[in-house]
């Protein structure tokens, strides 16, 4: 029999598996066809080009209710990316700080950080999002508290207003030449990077130490400031001001975005703290002792010996936490922040009834993000892999 002959067994198994797979797919597809026919539906993506008919309150690009569903989905994608990137940055800072402080020999700080990590890791992120959202909407003043002579609230530096409808901040307006200043600034950032690289190379090749701190600071500020004043101050700030019942002008950051951002940051920060702690503890004590016996100072031991080895342990789980942030940002729908799940998977799905198409597109979007991040991750892992001789 084919199953008992070791030469063909694996082929037989695979053939059976393939048959089962084809049968299952055919069964599902047949059901789909029958159900769609019975309901008088078809699979079509033309709804993406029709007018959406709903508004999105937080929109990074121009959008109104006459725009297409496709544009609504793009707004949703941008909103997802905005909150994910913001949360990744703050979660990293929070997590690194908490992870390092949890190893501190200061008893009370170590305990507080342990409490922070355990409290946030063991309570669902959805509950944290809802708690922070209700704090923001309940405890911040309404815009009309800023009104009149007997106002109960005032704006911070006359530029920032914290209200229960969100935070209003100044918005930079690019005049003619504004982009040139931004370009100069980016160019000087690249310049700083190149300069530091050159200094390291010099150190390794010739053994000459070149001070990098003050030149970097100078490069950071001076070219952009010169360009700014030479071009006649082309970038101005648009300040929010109270007009009517609400603030006008400036940049409004909705409470839902802030709640989601903060909740994802503190929740994921707790996980990152554990990764950082594990990474630092994974570097054996012998490494820092060896470095000390070579005569390195404590700060150099940290920078040159411990951190590079700890990063090798920290970065892979860190990136998977970034992926988790991106996926968890889909909980935006619970507080009404219009990310891709809220637009494409929420209102568009309900209005058009195109459930299969919408959910498929939604999954495809998240899959593309996940797979591209993990591809980059694999490349990085291969690059830093320990090369044993």
């Amino acid at each position, binding site marked *: 029999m084919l*199953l008992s002959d070791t030469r063909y067994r*694996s082929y037989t*198994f*695979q053939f059976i*598996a*393939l048959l089962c*797979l084809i049968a299952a797919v055919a069964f*599902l597809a047949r*059901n*789909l066809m*029958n*159900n*769609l026919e*019975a309901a008088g539906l078809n699979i079509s993506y033309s709804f993406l080009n029709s007018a959406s008919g709903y508004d999105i309150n937080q929109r990074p690009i121009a959008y109104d209710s006459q725009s297409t569903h496709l544009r609504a989905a793009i707004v949703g994608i941008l909103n997802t990316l905005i909150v994910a990137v913001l949360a990744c940055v703050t979660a990293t800072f929070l997590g690194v700080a908490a992870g390092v*402080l949890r190893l*501190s*020999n*200061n*008893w*009370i*700080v170590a305990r*507080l950080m342990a409490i922070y990590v*355990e*409290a946030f*890791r*063991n*309570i*669902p*992120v*959805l*509950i*944290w999002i*809802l*708690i922070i959202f*209700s704090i923001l909407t*309940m405890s911040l003043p309404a815009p009309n508290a800023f009104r009149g002579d007997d106002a109960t609230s005032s704006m911070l530096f006359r530029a920032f207003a914290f209200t229960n409808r969100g935070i209003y901040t100044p918005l930079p307006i690019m005049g003619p030449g504004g982009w040139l200043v931004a370009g100069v600034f980016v160019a000087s950032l690249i310049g700083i990077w190149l300069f530091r690289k050159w200094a390291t190379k010099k150190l390794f090749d010739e053994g000459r130490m070149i001070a990098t701190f003050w030149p970097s600071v100078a490069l950071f500020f001076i070219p952009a400031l010169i360009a700014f004043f030479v071009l006649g101050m082309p970038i101005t700030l648009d300040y929010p001001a109270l007009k009517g019942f609400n603030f006008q002008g400036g940049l409004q950051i909705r409470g839902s975005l802030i709640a989601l951002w903060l909740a994802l940051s503190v929740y994921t920060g707790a996980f990152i703290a554990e990764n950082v702690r594990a990474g630092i503890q994974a570097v054996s004590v012998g490494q820092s002792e060896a470095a000390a016996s070579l005569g390195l100072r404590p700060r150099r031991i940290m920078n040159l010996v411990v951190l590079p080895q700890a990063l090798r342990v920290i970065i892979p789980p860190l990136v998977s936490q970034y992926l988790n942030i991106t*996926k*968890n940002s*889909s*909980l935006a*729908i*619970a507080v009404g922040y219009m990310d891709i*799940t809220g637009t494409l*998977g929420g209102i568009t*799905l309900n209005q058009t009834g195109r*459930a*299969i198409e919408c*959910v498929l597109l*939604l*999954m495809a979007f*998240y*899959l593309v993000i*996940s*797979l591209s991040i993990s591809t980059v991750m694999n490349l990085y892992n291969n690059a830093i892999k320990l090369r044993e001789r």
Partner: protein
Amino acid sequence: MSDTHAQSVAFMRDTMLPEAPPPESEAGVVRWIRSNLFSGWFNTILTITSLYCLYLFLAAVGPWLVNGVWDAADIRECREKLQGATGGCFAVIAERWPQMIFGFKYPSEIYWRPAVAFILLLVAIAPVLFSKVFPARMLYFSALYPFLAYYLIWGGTILIPVIALLGFAVGYFVYARQVYRSFAVGLFGGIAAAVATWFIGGFITAALPEFLALREVASRDIGGFMLNLILGTVCVSLSLPLGILLALGRQSEMPVVKGICVVFIEFIRGVPLITLLFVANVVLAYFLPPGTNFDLIVRVIIMITMFASAYIAEVIRGGLAALPKGQYEAANALGLDYPQAMRLIILPQALKISIPGIVNVAVGLFKDTTLVSIISMFDLVGMVRGPILSSSDWNGVYWELFGFAGLLFFVVCYGISQYSQWLERQLRTDHR
């Protein structure tokens, strides 16, 4: 001896001094405080900052807890009693806790049934968790428990869980008799026998719907923290065997089997759970034969199980990869075939390595069961956001409700993770 030097040495002590205690500043509390809290300017700043933060936190939460009102009919009465003082309105928990635990549609006369099921869950799970303390015979009860829990929570005739149990028993009996021929014969024989039993049993249950029947409760009436617990335990237990299969498939050398498993795992891990719940809610029905109508809870269990099994598969794959190659070769050298080698040699060790990871997945999954509130199922979070906060009596009592919900989840999740750390220490067989 001292005579010879009587002139040259003025004084020589010939008795030991009693031991003096260390200086006051180098011992006890003072030393501990100095070395742990104020050793250097940076640590001092950290200590003072954190003490200040702690003070702010306690100053805010302390009065809120102490002044809390536990007895009031609605939020207005609560505020009257507080008279402007800071204080929590815990009366909402006192009044609504049955709803938060059981959901708002579960008939209140039969709350005892899920309560008994929960207590029995503790009894059933104890011998699994602490196998050294409890006698092994209790495991029989653990095997019976799922059927008992179904009967208690959903009600209906006792014949349904009995027939289901009978099917498993017959299947296992056939498997145990046939497995000596080959694993495949035993497995498929067992499955066939079980399916035959269920098929025949279907006629019996249809004929006797009232036999020893408890009052029936529809799936959509189940809610509250009970729903979170049901989803969590059912999905984790179902996803374990599925995850093992997927992990073995991904390790396999057959490209087709491996390909199927890789695509499945990467697809599931690449999308958020909420999209899978959308599938359960609005899409899955399109892929089932016309006329079949699963409960939403069953559809959700299917999707969450798939989700969890992909993550568990990755954890177990890590465990399989961490085993030294010698174990596989030793199993081959003993002449074991693949199922035997896996069951007797590889999986016991690989699963032991994977326990912390599996527990992490389980805790994460249990927390993720709150997402079902987004597809309008009334789990604990759904109950709080929906019926309780939108009722006119308690509109505006956010802190107390979300705090209570968070506390329930914290107790369960923290307990599980502490257990897993304990188990890891127990299972450590090497000498350190």
